């Protein structure tokens, strides 16, 4: 029990409970079904990004190109569909997956084949994707999106006194991606291989782990998630703005790290990533309802991340708590 509470997920659950309790008392609009549903609808895209990113982080890599990759997918798919009379959900979904996975595999190829560090590769592809997109599109947004993408698809409604609160398609898609990714990471042999590879790549190689495949899977899966998130985002905002997702990668990275993933690999969970996104979303929502400047949000995010990481490392900083002698770093 104590162990569960001290895990990154446990701490996040406690924090979320505390923040929610405070906001329910301090604000009018927070503890309403409408607000909760809005939060879920709005955060579904971020959560899809986050569960993809957590796979890459667990494998010991990092990717900062995924949010502009999502913009590329949006733009390519929608512009193509507009040239063939709009298409439909099925064609769009298929194209999205193909383009998204391809962009992810490009990262994996560069990282694995040419032995370049993932941060460098994805800084490169981040600029490449974004530069090409802005150059070729001329920075023009697409406002006239196909009808099937324009109309909201409700998946669940809750009757209120006045009107009703509704969850839309992106929430369902998000749920599917969360469950699927969670299952792969925590319940399959492949998932354990990803943790093992992130934890000790050499040992994984010697154990016969197919390193090329593990990396292709991790970056390909993030590419897939990015593509899907891109399509959902276009559906929610009903337009395609090429630079709309620019900069989103750092917010997602922050949330995922808050959820317990570490940059060295081997650690992180889907639950943690989801909770990380939700905590930051709740705080943003709360500050909004309290009428506080959005810049304060940035400050709060910074403080939360720094303190969360510090608390998590406390057991390593206090030698007394560590059961094994010499776990602290010996240096000179």
């Amino acid at each position, binding site marked *: 029990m104590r162990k569960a509470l001290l895990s990154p997920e446990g701490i996040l659950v406690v924090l979320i409970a505390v923040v929610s309790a405070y906001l329910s008392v301090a604000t009018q609009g927070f503890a309403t079904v409408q607000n909760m549903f809005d939060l879920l609808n709005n955060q579904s895209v971020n959560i899809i990004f986050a569960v993809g990113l957590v796979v890459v982080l667990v494998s010991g890599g990092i990717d900062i190109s995924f949010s502009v990759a999502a913009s590329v997918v949006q733009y390519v798919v929608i512009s193509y569909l507009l040239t063939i009379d709009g298409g439909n959900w099925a064609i769009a979904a298929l194209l999205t997956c193909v383009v998204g996975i391809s962009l992810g595999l490009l990262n994996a190829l560069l990282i694995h084949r040419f032995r370049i560090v993932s941060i460098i590769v994805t800084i490169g592809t981040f600029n490449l994707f974004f530069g090409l997109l802005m150059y070729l599109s001329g920075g023009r947004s697409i406002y006239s999106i196909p009808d099937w993408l324009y109309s909201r698809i409700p998946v669940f409604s809750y009757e209120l006194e006045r009107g009703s609160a509704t969850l839309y398609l992106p929430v369902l898609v998000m749920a599917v991606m969360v469950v699927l990714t969670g299952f792969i990471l925590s319940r*399959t*042999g*492949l998932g354990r291989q990803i943790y093992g590879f992130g*934890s*000790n790549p050499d040992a994984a190689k010697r154990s016969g782990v197919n390193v090329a495949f593990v990396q292709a899977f991790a970056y390909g899966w993030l590419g897939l998630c990015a593509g899907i998130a891109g399509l959902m985002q276009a559906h929610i905002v009903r337009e395609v703005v090429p630079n709309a997702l620019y900069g989103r990668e750092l917010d997602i990275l922050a949330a995922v790290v808050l959820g317990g993933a570490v940059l060295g*690999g*081997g650690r992180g969970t889907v639950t943690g990533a989801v909770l990380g996104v939700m905590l930051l979303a709740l705080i943003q929502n709360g500050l909004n309802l309290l009428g506080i400047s959005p810049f304060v949000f940035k400050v709060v995010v910074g403080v939360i991340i720094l303190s969360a990481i510090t608390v998590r490392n406390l057991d390593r900083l206090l030698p007394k708590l560590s059961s094994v002698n010499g776990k602290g770093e010996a240096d000179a």
Partner: protein
Amino acid sequence: MTDYALKAENITQKFGAFSALKNVSFDLKVGEVHCLAGENGCGKSTLIKVINGVHRPEPGARIGFGSGQSAGHITPSDAKRNGVHVIWQDLAVFPDLTVAENITFDSFVASPLKPVGSRDRKRRVNEIIARLDIDLDPDELVGNLSIAKRQLVAICRVLDADAKIIFMDEPTASLTRKETESLLRIVRRLSAAGISVVFVSHRLAEVLDVCERVTVLRDGNLVGTYPTEGMSQKKLSKLMTGMDVHEEPRGPQTFGETAIEVKGLTRRGEFADVSFAVRRGEILGLTGLMGSGRTEIALTLFGMNKADAGQILLEGKPVSFGSNKDAIAAGIAYVSEDRLNLGLIQNQSIINNTAITVLDDLADPPVFLAPSRLSQLCTSWIARLKTKVSDPRLPVSVLSGGNQQRIVLAKWLATNPKVLILDAPTVGVDVGAKAGIFEIVRDLAATGMSIILISDEASEIHTHADRCLILRNGRIHQQLDPADVDEEKLEELINA
């Protein structure tokens, strides 16, 4: 079909211009326990890596298995398919996975799509732990374990696999006597079940006890393969080193004034009321079972842990260390038992690893480090400690285990300490090098350095310590002069 489980012929392995193995042949019978012996850096681990497909040997090699498969080189999955499993010397474990997941990791690789059922896994793991009669928590993260326990995890891992051939690269290096004994029992049982075991150890008594044949390598050359029957430790070490190795007991010495004194040192949960003094030129043996507080006391003397009570006096003056930095500045050096993690920065060059403790002193004028001074320092220590290094600019990780241990020693000796704490300094070090290291230690003592030698090998303490403290449950149980007892008696006292 033959009764050979493995036949490797004409193996030559080059790293750049350096040949780690020269035309070596090796065969293994079904159900045999076979020892690979040789000095540090002679190529034992390299041979294991070639047979497991980690390295690709020069053309002309032939590696064949009992299954009939035979090729010039193989891949790690070929090796797995032929039931070859390894306990790696550098313990290839996964720190972020649990003990149970580490032990059963191969099943994740074999069936990536199969859901990982945890109940069956736990049962299997508990069974193995019970078989080995050891203390391991299946749910603990391996990253939180000591090296000795990680070693046990690596052992359990090959026991879980459906192995035909098991390579054990120094599996006993950090085990206690009891754990070693149960491992040797398991090895015999495996062999009886038709599984071949290749055993690497620098503890020759162990080798002669458990193995049927021994293959000796020297500087990458095959010396020969011999039956262990009728082989003595002395003869084996001569085959390994090409020299007669013998160590004289130290005999009575005269010492200077007290260099370090400890009064009533206590750290809750680790040790209590420990008092002793070491004079200049004296070698004090500190011994006891694992968990008796040996290493914990050393870490406190070295400023890495704070004492709850008691006093440390250095040359008569009370000192208190905020960190190991203060301890180093005061003239205390600590050679850690865990060289892989604490002793060395694996991906840094041998030069940098040697110089890291004395960077400030080498900088002249301040802040500016001349590369030539670094390499001078490094070359002089390599020569003094007779370390086998092909190029000091290579990362320290390419060195063989025993040579890494010498670099750790060099790094601390470079600080020119007043008090040198050696924690299991000869773990994984070959017989010749052990003698070499102790020769150096004695020379250091002769220059007036005080030495605290932590070891659970009775023979080491017996031959080299001037005085010996036996710890039990964190307290000093007995103090004695090793000359007053014989080695067997000392062994008994330590393990009682």
